């Protein structure tokens, strides 16, 4: 069974060929880490799965991206509907300048769900899933801007979980956080993978090793190697993967 899949994905930004014929699939309830040096295309690849690249004016895709068996780039695909089933967590915590409660409720509210009881339930459930509930349960009306960076990032995760996505995309979610907050996020990812499929971009190879089941190594727009994380780190098939993982370039 496959949760999400890229087939012969080629991406151009104008004349720049950013992703070259990438084929990759993701199993349900797994964590896949995308690694590679800056500019290798891993973020571009991640953002294919919720059509975030559409915001860039000269973006062009060839090939297909399927989530839940549905081609999300089909002509009749509804972008907003697709994005509702896919959560995303960004590099820097980016809570809305609203209350903690409203941040989590946002995804439901834009879906037209304003029933107080439903919202209360979802907010509590999501904050618990994101391991933030105990810290903020008495201050749900507090501005999300007033909590710490690590808490903000977990709030952003809760916000993404509130719409009950199947797939969660994480773009270096811990790179702007201190080690303790990073550890909390990693624990959280470990918990979350029981019920969600997670694709995570990271610069931190140890992190990739700790949290992921599969790892994909990107280099200059090519997917060099994609395998079980243990295999990738201990016995990679490609020399370039070996060199990158051992720190000889990157």
């Amino acid at each position, binding site marked *: 069974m496959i949760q999400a899949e890229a087939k012969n994905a080629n991406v151009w930004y104008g004349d720049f060929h950013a992703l070259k014929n990438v084929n990759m699939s993701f199993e349900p309830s797994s964590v896949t880490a995308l690694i590679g040096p800056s500019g290798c295309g891993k973020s571009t690849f991640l953002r294919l799965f919720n059509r975030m690249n559409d915001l860039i004016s000269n973006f062009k895709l060839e090939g297909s991206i399927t989530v839940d068996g549905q081609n999300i780039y089909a002509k009749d695909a509804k972008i907003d509907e697709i994005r*509702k089933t896919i959560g995303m967590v960004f590099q820097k915590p*980016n809570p809305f300048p609203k209350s903690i409660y409203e941040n989590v409720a946002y995804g439901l*509210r834009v879906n037209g769900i304003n029933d107080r009881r439903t919202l209360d339930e979802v907010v509590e459930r999501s904050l618990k899933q994101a391991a933030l509930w105990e810290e903020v349960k008495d201050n749900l009306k507090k501005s999300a801007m007033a909590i710490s960076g690590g808490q903000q990032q977990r709030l952003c995760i809760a916000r993404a979980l509130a719409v009950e996505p199947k797939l969660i995309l994480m773009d270096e979610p811990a790179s702007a956080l201190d080690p303790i907050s990073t550890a909390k996020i990693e624990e959280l990812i470990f918990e979350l993978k029981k019920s969600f499929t997670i694709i995570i971009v990271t610069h931190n190879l140890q992190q990739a090793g700790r949290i992921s089941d599969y790892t994909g190594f990107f280099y200059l727009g090519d997917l060099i190697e994609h395998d079980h994380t243990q295999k990738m780190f201990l016995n990679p098939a490609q020399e370039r993967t070996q060199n990158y993982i051992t720190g000889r370039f990157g």
Partner: protein
Amino acid sequence: MKKFKKLVEYFVEAVLFSSSTITSLTVILIVIFLFREGIGMFNSSPLEQNFVIVVSQKNPVQELNATQIKAIFNQDIVNWSAVGGAKDSIILFTTNDITNYYSEEELGSSLENLPAKLNDFILENPGAIMYISSKSLPPNFAGHKLAVKKIGVADFVFGEQWYPTSEPIPSYGIWPMIIGTLMVTLGALLFAIPLGIATAIFMAEVASMRIRNLLKPIIELLAGIPSVVFGFFGLIIIVPLVQKTFGLVVGETVLAGSIVLGIMALPTIITITEDALRTTPQALKEASLALGATRWQTLVRVVVPYAKSGISTAIILGIGRAIGETMAVLMVTGNSSNIPHSFLVPARTIPATIAAELGEAPYGGLHFKALFALGIVLFIFTIIVNSSVEFIKNRSRRA
């Protein structure tokens, strides 16, 4: 060589320092000047210089206020008992009336007998009230000058009549101008705010780069058009349009002024709002879109709330632009100094009054001072507007 460099540095510093000092001093001097001239209004008698109002020595009335004098000379009050005097009818007399009582021979060829005749008149008519030049008073005049109450700040601000040159006593009530200014400004904002914000949203969020690059210079050009041109445009296009649309006798109305002012406030509102909308971090927009919000939902729920302090600033600066605008308003509002009770009647604003009347007000006279006092009122308005901008900025910085 090193010494020379130091000298140059010192010189540059001195130039910078003196420039800023001169600028600040100029501002302070202007404010002082404005207040000195304007405040003078409240320290002087409302009578024209060198003119007096006199009554018979037997008349017990010593002091009247401007309203009473006006009522007497308009013959609304015809008996002294109404103003605290004896039961005696009031006989009005101004210098022009002299020929009704005395022949030209009696007065003399160069009016040399005028003072004596004035004396005779007051002796013969103990109920008389005379508005005459103080130069024509005889040395042993048989009457006494009436003291006239000074104009109070409340009379000035809340007075409903503005007759700055009426005789014997002018009226300086600026309430119609305050209401006129506020109504014209309000009307301007009622259509400039929605239009301006809509345009800004279009430019910041909807329009393609090419359309935006086309639109931006046009809007900036709109800000650079001289206000007299706007006034001219208003007079030729808007005024007849308003007149025809509403079937009015005159098209020079509050509405016409509002439309012209609104157009003039648009560039301010649009540019500042657009800048504010653009400051919304891309990350927030992406977060919203990633949660399945449409572009429109993102705009309403994230972008606009994020930019709201900038949008408020834009609106308030738009108010500032509208409230102080002179020339265009002068040309299209009809300048009637009555309190406007609707948007379809003529009105008059504070700056238009100053511009229209300063030329004919004798230097240093009461009318002149009254116009400066109007300037103070306008100044206070703009201070309120500017400090609310500061207030909003500070508040958003803290949040």
